């Protein structure tokens, strides 16, 4: 695959949070690539590091923290191409601020919390437009109303002046999507955008996202722990566990030929419509990644039903390509 097929490449990303109780290595050698105009899914359970990885792309992780590795953004503005390592940028500098909310934007799980309660949604969307597209407030308002209409927001000329807390969850999410897309980003980071929404509203929002992606041509990094949503929304997916990418492949690969014991057992633990078989589960819970207590060897070994003594407890497994485009970090396939 040629380099210009990828929009973003994350190589050996490491993120450590420094706290009074100790240091947490939340991301520890994370790798993935997002293709242009395609959707990459990032799946994993609570605490695996997926949200902080997305925040790292926009350089909005709260300090104090240590960020290492490479986030290569293949920027292309009006045919002027530039490769930028986002990790090396000054997080408060002009370069990243020009990218944030403009070329790369983000939508999050709790739309009500993502908006300022003291400003109308209109004000907040217009702010993004004025920062990146045009300083003319009148023109910005027109652009905002147009985008709200495209996202299926009811009666935009009036409702644009609503406060976030006056809107339902679904409407608030649409307003957030409008705010994220108003500057026509090339990459949208969607962090659990429909978790917490009613299932019929979720269906609407997912449908909307697919439509907008086709219309505007953008890449999406879709983060969720709901594998059902994943299967519907993404072409490729990376499974994350304790700060690492443990399996990567197309949805076909992952759902029909999962290789990593974590992936295999995670899929078995999903209640499936139409089947009442006993659910599989993974014993134990993922530990907190305190720097001084990380297990030697494979991170998943303590919970793995297939761990090989003398192998899995010695070194961290390398990424092995089991079939074209399908990689797994597991000694079972070495």
């Amino acid at each position, binding site marked *: 695959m040629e380099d210009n097929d990828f929009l973003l490449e994350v190589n050996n990303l490491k993120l450590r949070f420094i706290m009074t109780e100790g240091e947490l290595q939340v991301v520890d050698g994370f790798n993935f690539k997002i293709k242009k105009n395609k959707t990459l899914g990032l799946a994993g359970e609570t605490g695996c590091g997926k949200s902080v990885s997305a925040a790292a792309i926009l350089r909005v992780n709260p300090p104090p923290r240590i960020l290492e590795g490479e986030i290569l953004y293949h920027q292309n503005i009006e045919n002027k191409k530039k490769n930028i390592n986002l990790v090396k940028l000054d997080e408060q500098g002009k370069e990243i601020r020009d990218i944030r909310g403009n070329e790369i934007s983000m939508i999050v799980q709790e739309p009500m919390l993502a908006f300022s309660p003291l400003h109308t949604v209109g004000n907040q969307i217009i702010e993004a437009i004025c920062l990146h597209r045009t300083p003319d407030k009148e023109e910005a308002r027109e652009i905002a109303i147009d985008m709200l209409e495209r996202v299926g927001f009811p009666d935009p000329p009036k409702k644009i002046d609503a406060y976030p807390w006056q809107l339902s969850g679904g*409407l608030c999410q649409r307003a957030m999507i409008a705010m994220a897309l108003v500057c026509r980003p090339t990459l949208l980071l969607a962090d659990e955008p429909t978790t917490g929404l*009613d299932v019929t509203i979720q269906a609407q929002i997912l449908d909307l996202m697919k439509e907008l992606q086709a219309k505007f041509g953008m890449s999406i990094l879709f983060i969720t722990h709901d594998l059902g949503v994943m299967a519907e929304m993404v072409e490729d997916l990376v499974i994350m566990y304790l700060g690492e990418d443990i399996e990567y492949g197309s949805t076909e690969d992952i759902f029909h030929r999962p290789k990593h014991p974590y992936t295999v057992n995670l899929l078995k633990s999903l209640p*499936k419509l139409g089947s009442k078989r006993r*659910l599989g589960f993974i014993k134990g819970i993922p530990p907190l990644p305190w720097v001084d207590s990380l297990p030697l060897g494979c991170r998943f070994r303590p919970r793995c039903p297939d761990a090989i003594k003398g192998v899995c407890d010695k070194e961290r497994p390398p990424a092995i390509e089991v079939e074209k485009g399908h990689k797994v970090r597991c000694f079972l396939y070495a």
Partner: protein
Amino acid sequence: MKKENSNKIVLEVKSLKKYFPIEKGFWKKITGYIKAVDNLNFYIREGETLGLVGESGCGKTTLGKCILRAIEPTEGNILFRLNGDVIDLTKLDKEPLRGMRRYAQMVFQDPYGSLDPRMSVLDIIGEPLVVNKIARGEELKKKVKSLMEVVELNPEYLGRYPHAFSGGQRQRIAIARALAPNPKFIVLDEPVSALDVSVQAQILNLLQDLQKEFNLTSLFIGHDLRTIEHISDRVAVMYVGKIVEMAETKEVFLNPTHPYTEALLSAVPKPDPHLKMKRIILSGEVASPANPPSGCYFHPRCRYAKEPCRKESPKLEEINPGHYVSCHFAKELSLQGIVT
């Protein structure tokens, strides 16, 4: 409502209503009502789990709380069969109601909010035993330890406090607490919604085992159709305070007869990229119980709606034995269930 095996019904709810008044202005004038639970009728047989599913604002949590009179119903009867007698919970005074509570327990959604952070596991699980004078001292400790084993918690953690446990473990404590007084009936209000998928699976497996072992009668409230299908014998679908469809689980999922059920089933994301069926996308927002539409509450979002739907509210009727639905056109419509 006609029922089979009527001598084995443990809980029967009749014409249950819970209306919250909407008060406006300084004088708190009542300008309307939020009809959270609007004339519900259903029953649960011994050893059965009735799954109650619906989206935000449908009234399912309110219903769960009304059944145990954690909040007071506005109207209606809650009949509970205990040792051959039928007791109307709505007619009980404070003391007898308290006495009844040992037989009807509840597990809540929030594993972090439902356990008192200042009570140890022994205190929490032991409380129903102490309050109902079932055990104390060494006997109490023994019973609590055995309950912890039932829910697969290490009995050595007796003296620990809630903050030392994960979400899944806290739910196990909450379940042990509910089982402690040996209840006949349990209300589980979204007990796994706040848990990660693999933890959810463990708790669901546990609940299934307990159902069998203790012949529990339960009301399982949730919004996720996948978990509801897994755990329930029968399912009731709620929309804005009313039951729109109710039948055996298989029936509801394979042969839905209400357009809302059809849309709900269609909206559930399936973890199989091969199953990309044509989805039914409902337009509009979920109706508000404070200002519901005229006639059938679902008509503005219903793709099959006709004139009568705007005018008249349909009644819950038996379309096939044991299968109830409230839709004017239920007999004519041919709806899509899940694909297996």
